[in-house]
């Protein structure tokens, strides 16, 4: 599988909304207030208003369901969604929950972002499949997003 760097995306997440046990698992919503992204072909900021609607399944896997809006440095708006999975050894997940820094190679945090834009200079985003690797930091996650070639 060949790929190349699309961007690194860092989002800022305030305290999450803990909804508790719902029919499919434990629902926690993480609002996104800001952030930045940068890659060889695009860079800019994350607009406020997005969030990650996470669901902890009974099998211990955290499902991620992210929606946010990116604004490029030349003023284009890009809608991004991403569905992913996070899981790992119990002690690693417990350390993450306590807000500690954990080597991201110690847990699995992968997602498949998709993009929509009307800006011609970024229309290539409408036509690619991408995969992200996540690194959960106390202030919010950092995603390294690669385009699948």
């Amino acid at each position, binding site marked *: *599988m*060949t*790929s190349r760097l699309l961007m690194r995306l860092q989002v800022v997440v305030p305290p999450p909304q803990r909804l508790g046990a719902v029919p499919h698992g434990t629902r926690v919503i993480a609002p996104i207030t800001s952030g930045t992204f940068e890659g060889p072909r695009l860079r800019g900021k994350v607009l406020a208003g997005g969030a990650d609607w996470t669901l902890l399944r009974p*099998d211990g*896997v955290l499902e991620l369901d992210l929606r946010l809006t990116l604004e490029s440095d030349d003023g284009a708006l890009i809608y991004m969604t991403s569905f*992913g*999975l996070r*899981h790992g050894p119990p002690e690693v997940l417990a350390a993450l929950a306590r807000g500690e820094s954990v080597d991201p190679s110690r847990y*699995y945090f*992968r*997602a*498949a972002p*998709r993009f929509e834009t009307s800006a011609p200079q970024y*229309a290539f985003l*409408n*036509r*690619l*499949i991408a*995969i992200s*690797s996540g690194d959960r930091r106390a202030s919010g996650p950092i995603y390294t997003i*690669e385009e*699948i070639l």
Partner: protein
Amino acid sequence: MNSRPLMTVRIAAAPLQRLGAVPHGIRTIVPVTGGEFEGPRLRGKVLPGGGDWLLLRSDGVLELDLRITLETDDHALIHMTFQGLRHGPPDAIAALGRGEIVDPASYYFRTVPRFEASTEKYAFLNRIVTVGVGETRPDGAVHRIDEIL
């Protein structure tokens, strides 16, 4: 991006159901009649009854939306879905449309498969993010699926 082969899925399809122009594009439904899959950790057959709900967007990109059921050689049932994109040079896409064999390197056909399994032996499928490289054949499609590590 580190990955390893998960399996190759060969899907046999019945004649296309061409619904024509709908609000989001041109809808074509591909009924799945069978097939087979094989990889280092699982193998078996594709059950009839699934399909791929294709949508040709106004920008020329074909969106794929597949749902099928796999049955392993030890009789476990696995629910598989994917969303994907296919696009390429007009002559390659036209040749595919005429049912000709086209080198899959000449067009972009990538998917993000997801799985659901209830048996412990195949529960790893519930916990991985995967990417498929597709090939359209006159009698169906072949998908080489890698697990993202």
